[in-house]
Structures are given as structure tokens and as C-alpha cells.
């Protein structure tokens, strides 16, 4: 074959982005990179991003301790991913409609969810804590990847209406392996939907590392589908915000669907039931802790002469949110099963008769007691 090897070399080989590194505005020591300096630095924006990240972390940590104390059944921490979430959601217009996965607590907070709304399903009092239309934020989808197709359909609906709303779907590096997510990539590209995919590649899907999850970085795969793709340092709030702004406005302008792969890290376990020590090394954790998105942005702000008073005030707000989180959590009461019978169908349905059977049974048992 040798004679023909050159001639018949594959058109395409996986090496699409050889040595590129993700877009980064803030380096590990909190210095602005050349790219960061080139991009207009907006201290007010930086402050807002910082504040929301600090608030998100406070809520997240309080939720963990609430779980430890038995007030929540489960909690999936977003610690470490605050820049990827806050940086992206703050670059969207309020009318842009978001389909999150299940770890986007910072996104929810920025979109105005109360701590109680965010905690309800983890306390086991509801399956979904908020009204998806009130904040243009759909519920969490726990079945991985399913929301990517809902987002495609929603985006299609917006286009049919001629609306300029951009639909945004968040998902993880693991979910990206699901057929649904790949079908959504294809529908978006084929139908040129006003849809922005944001993948938080936090390096792990429970105990499965990205090396066992995909053969190429997701932004490369997405480009193959026909999505304009960005690769960003997801622990850099300024870069996340700038790239998301760029991407979402280009989608709105009709340049077609896009994807952002944000390199980040899940600092905690997969959930409060997970023990990450079983599958990852202290060194790895250590290395990523150095890239903490909050510390990095704080350095920038300090250099930007934001004074201690402001930081103190921000920390106070965070402490207050933690208190509020605890209060609202404890106030979340279980529903009455009897009420659920009427909430399955919109039109009349005989299952509502089961409600009376259930209530009769409850009376029977209570009668015996």
C-alpha cells in the first residue's frame, strides 16, 4: 500500500486543534493575560461576577451542611464551577430561555430563584422547585441529556415565531455521550436553530474521567456537527462572560447554533453521597483548587483597586444568604399526597377517584390509631 498511502491518507484526522489552549483572560496568579488586556476590562462587570460567584458558593456550602444535618436528602455541589455558570448566564438576555442540567445552582441564583426554590427537590418535597416560565429557566433535568432536545424544540419554536430569543442548554462532559445530546447537535446544525450549548467539562462523570468518556474534546466533536465552537477556561469568569456574550449574540444575529466547552472542575464529590477519594488523587484536587475561579477574579479586582470594604460587604451578603438558605430550607414542607392525584392530567381523569380511596384509607388507619 505504501505507494498509495499518501494518496489515500484520510481526508480528516482528529487533530483539529493541535496545541491550542482554551481562551483565558486571567492567568493562575490572577494577572490579566494578553487576551484579557486586549478585551476591555469592565470593573463593574467584574464586581458583579465576583459577587454572584461568592453568593453561589455560600448557598452551595450551606446546602452541603444542611444535607449533613439531615435537612436535605441529597445535594449536588457546584463548588468550583461558579465562573462557568455565573460568567455564562450573566452574558445572556433575560428573555433567553435556559434548559439546565442539575448542577446549575449558580445559574438559578442569578436568574432569581430563591434558595427555597433551589433546594425543594433535594429536600424531597417536590420534583421541581420553580416555575420555568417565571425566570425563563426550565427545571433541572435529571435524566442526562434529555434537556438538549427540549432546548432544540424550544429554539425551533422561537424561530417559527420569529422571536429573537436564544435558547441555551447546559450539560456536562458525561451527558455529552448520550444519543439525545448528539441528536440535538445535529438538529441544531441542520435546522440552523438559535441555540447555544454550554458544556461544563468538569473532568468527571461521577467516577468516570473524560478520557473514558470521549475520544476528542467536545468542542471538536461539536464543530464536526456544524456548530461554531469555543473552548474556554471555565474557571475564568471574565473569559466565560466575554465568550458567552460573543456566542449568544452571534446566535441571535442568525449566524447559527454554537457550543461553548468550559474547562472546569467539580471541587466536591459528585453528590453528598459520593466519595471522590475512591477515584481521584489529592494532587489533582490540589492543582484545580489553585485555579479557583473566585480567588482568581478577586486578585484582578484587588489590582483594580476594589477596596476591602466592598469585599467585606460582599462576604456579609453571602453570610446573610447562607442564613436565609437555612431558613427557607427548613420552611419547605412536604406536599399532601392527596393533592398530587389532580396534578397528573390537565383534563379530567379517573385517577382522581383514587384520591378518595387514598383518603378513605388514611381515615381508616387513623381511625384505628
Amino acid at each position, binding site marked *: 500500500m505504501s505507494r498509495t498511502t499518501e494518496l489515500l491518507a484520510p481526508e480528516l484526522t482528529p487533530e483539529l486543534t493541535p496545541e491550542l489552549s482554551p481562551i483565558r483572560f486571567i492567568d493562575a496568579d490572577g494577572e490579566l493575560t494578553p487576551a484579557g488586556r486586549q478585551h476591555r476590562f469592565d470593573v463593574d462587570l467584574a464586581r458583579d461576577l465576583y459577587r454572584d460567584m461568592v453568593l453561589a458558593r455560600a448557598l452551595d456550602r450551606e446546602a452541603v451542611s444542611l444535607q449533613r444535618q439531615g435537612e436535605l436528602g441529597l445535594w449536588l455541589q457546584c463548588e468550583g464551577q461558579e465562573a462557568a455558570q455565573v460568567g455564562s448566564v450573566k452574558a445572556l438576555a433575560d428573555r433567553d430561555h435556559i434548559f439546565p442540567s442539575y448542577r446549575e445552582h449558580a445559574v438559578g441564583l442569578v436568574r432569581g430563584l430563591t434558595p427555597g426554590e433551589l433546594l425543594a427537590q433535594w429536600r424531597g418535597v417536590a420534583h421541581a422547585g420553580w416555575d420555568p416560565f417565571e425566570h425563563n429557566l426550565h427545571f433541572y433535568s435529571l435524566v442526562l441529556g434529555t434537556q438538549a*432536545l*427540549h432546548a432544540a424544540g424550544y429554539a425551533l419554536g422561537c424561530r417559527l415565531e420569529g422571536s429573537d430569543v436564544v435558547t441555551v442548554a447546559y450539560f456536562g462532559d458525561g451527558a455529552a455521550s448520550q444519543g439525545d445530546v448528539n441528536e440535538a447537535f445535529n438538529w441544531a446544525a441542520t435546522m440552523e436553530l438559535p441555540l447555544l450549548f454550554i458544556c461544563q467539562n468538569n473532568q468527571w462523570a461521577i467516577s468516570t474521567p473524560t478520557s473514558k468518556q470521549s475520544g476528542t474534546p467536545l468542542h471538536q466533536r461539536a464543530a464536526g456537527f456544524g456548530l461554531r465552537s469555543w473552548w474556554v477556561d471555565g474557571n475564568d469568569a471574565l473569559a466565560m462572560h466575554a465568550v458567552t456574550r460573543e456566542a449568544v449574540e452571534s446566535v441571535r444575529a442568525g449566524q447559527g447554533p454554537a457550543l461553548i466547552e468550559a474547562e472546569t472542575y467539580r471541587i466536591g464529590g459528585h453528590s453528598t453521597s459520593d466519595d471522590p477519594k475512591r477515584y481521584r488523587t489529592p494532587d489533582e484536587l490540589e492543582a484545580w483548587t489553585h485555579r479557583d475561579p473566585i480567588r482568581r477574579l478577586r486578585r484582578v479586582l484587588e489590582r483594580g483597586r476594589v477596596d476591602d470594604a466592598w469585599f467585606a460587604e460582599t462576604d456579609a451578603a453571602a453570610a446573610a444568604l447562607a442564613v436565609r438558605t437555612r431558613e427557607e430550607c427548613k420552611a419547605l414542607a412536604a406536599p399532601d399526597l392527596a393533592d398530587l392525584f389532580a396534578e*397528573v392530567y390537565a383534563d379530567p381523569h379517573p385517577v382522581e377517584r383514587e384520591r378518595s380511596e387514598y383518603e378513605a384509607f388514611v381515615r381508616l388507619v387513623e381511625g384505628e390509631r
Partner: protein
Amino acid sequence: MVVATLGKALNLAMRDAMRADDRVVVLGEDVGVLGGVFRVTDGLTDEFGPRRVFDTPLAESGIVGTAIGLALRGFRPVCEIQFDGFVYPAFDQIVSQLAKMRARSRGRVALPLVIRIPAGGGIGAVEHHSESNEAYFAHTAGLRVVSCSNPPDAYRLLRSAIESNDPVVFFEPKRRYWDKGEVDLDARPAALDRALVLRTGRDCTLIAHGPSVKVALAAAEAAHEDGVSVGVVDLRSLAPLDVDTLRRCVAQTGRAVVVHEASTFLGIGAEIAAAVTEGCFFELKAPVLRVGGYNLPYPPAKVEEEFLPGVDRVLAAIDHSINFGRTPVDV
């Protein structure tokens, strides 16, 4: 009043629903220019254009998943699954998302979405093109499951399904697509949870749906000629079941035979037998019997007639029911 085939009646139902409400959109594989492999969406593109009737990429999970997104945006999507055997890739979206979304939202979110499925056997098709998989959906809380058996009912039931604010899995008896009947386009919408008594009888009640209704009616007629009076109930709604009507009919005859093409093991007949027996225990003169597909994967076309419940098997079951406990007839 127009005379139309069952397939045409469904086509008219979509046409009229789209005229009545411009949030109704039709999507699926080859539903556009081609009009669907059974031509049930024929002409809709001409009248409503490619923005309301569109061909999708070849992915059923994608069809239902995006339809859910369209419904969340306020549309009323009508999805076509090309054949019964190809709905399974969408099963997760149907069972985990479509069925549960309203309950998940505690009633805040409605998903008015119809999934049309040409189902059942009898057309000499290759594998995966003759499945009767209604039980999977009927067992799923949150869905409505409808099965039509004749042209006028097909029109009314599909109109009602599209008007419903609940997700509806709508089964179409593909081997009856070419049956003709008088369709009243002005008939008021049919209730989605009511069975229809097509024939009253004194000795035994046949309960069937979709393609098997015709078989049941033929069996009842044949029994009549042998002096046995047999009633026929068309279920129409498989979930919920119209248990009141079923119990009322069976209480009168004391005997019931359920007929469907699906395998009997955990087929819809199992629920009917259990529910009817609970309600008519003292009236029953024999156990509710089931005539359905054997508990095999659907066989090759050349033997499907032996596999499917036909008039002879139904008659044998009626016989068995009437003689139950007396002569040991084995069916």
C-alpha cells in the same frame, strides 16, 4: 358528511385542527412532501407550508424530545412515528419526560402533544412493522392512550386528542387505513375516556380496540347466526380504561372475552380482566378470557394470520366461556 377511508379521516382531522389553531404543527419522518409512508399527512404541506409541517432528521428521540420543547414554547405538536416498531428510541423521552412533566411541575406545565403511531399487523410487512405496543404506554401514568377503529371515530378521536391538554399516544390500525366510512366533520369531539358499545348482547361481551374491533364484530355476527347473542365494546381509550362501561356490559352478560393483537401476557386484556372481575365478581359466570397474539415476538408475515386473533379464535373463546366448567374445551 363525507365518505372517507380511515387514513383520510385522520388526514382531515389534522387539516381541520390546523385550520382551527395555528399552534398545531406536524412533524416526523417523511411527513412533508411525501405525506408520510401511509399518506396520512398528504396535502398538509401544500395547505400549511413547511413551517407547520416538516420532515425531521431520522431520530425518534429527537422527534419527541423536540416536540416537548415546542410544546413548552406553546405549540401543539402532532408527531408521526413512521411505524410502531420505531417508537422505542423515543421511549425515554415519552416515559421520563412527556408523561411526567406535568406532575413534576405540580400542574404548572401542560404538554399538549400527540404521538401518532400506525400500529398492528395484518399487512404482510417485514419485522418491526406490525407491533402492538400499546401496553407499554398504557402502564405509564401521565399519558393518555387512544386507539381508533373506524373512520368517523378516527376523525373525532384525533381531533379530541389534538385538543386535549394532555399528552396522547394515538394508535392507528394500519391495516384498516383503507376501510371506508361516513365521516361527520361537524360531529362534536369525542370524549377521550369513553368506550363505545357497538353491539349489545345477552350471552357474552366482546371487548376490543383498534384493528380487532372489526374481528369482534364479525365474530359477534357469526355467533348470532348460531343463536348466541354477543355484545361488542370498542375501548377507544386504553388509558384510562372506561371501567364503568365495561363493568356495566359484563354485569349484564356475565361473560367477557377481550380481543387484541398484542401478546396477552400483560397485554391490556390483563388489566381489563382484573378490573372487570373486581367489579363483577358475583355476576361473572366464567373468568374473563383473553384472545390475543401468542407470547412470541411478532412472526414472519407468512404466518401472521395464524398468529393474530381471528374470528375462529374469538368464537372458540366465546364457546369456552359459555361452556366454562362444563366440557373442557382447550383454547
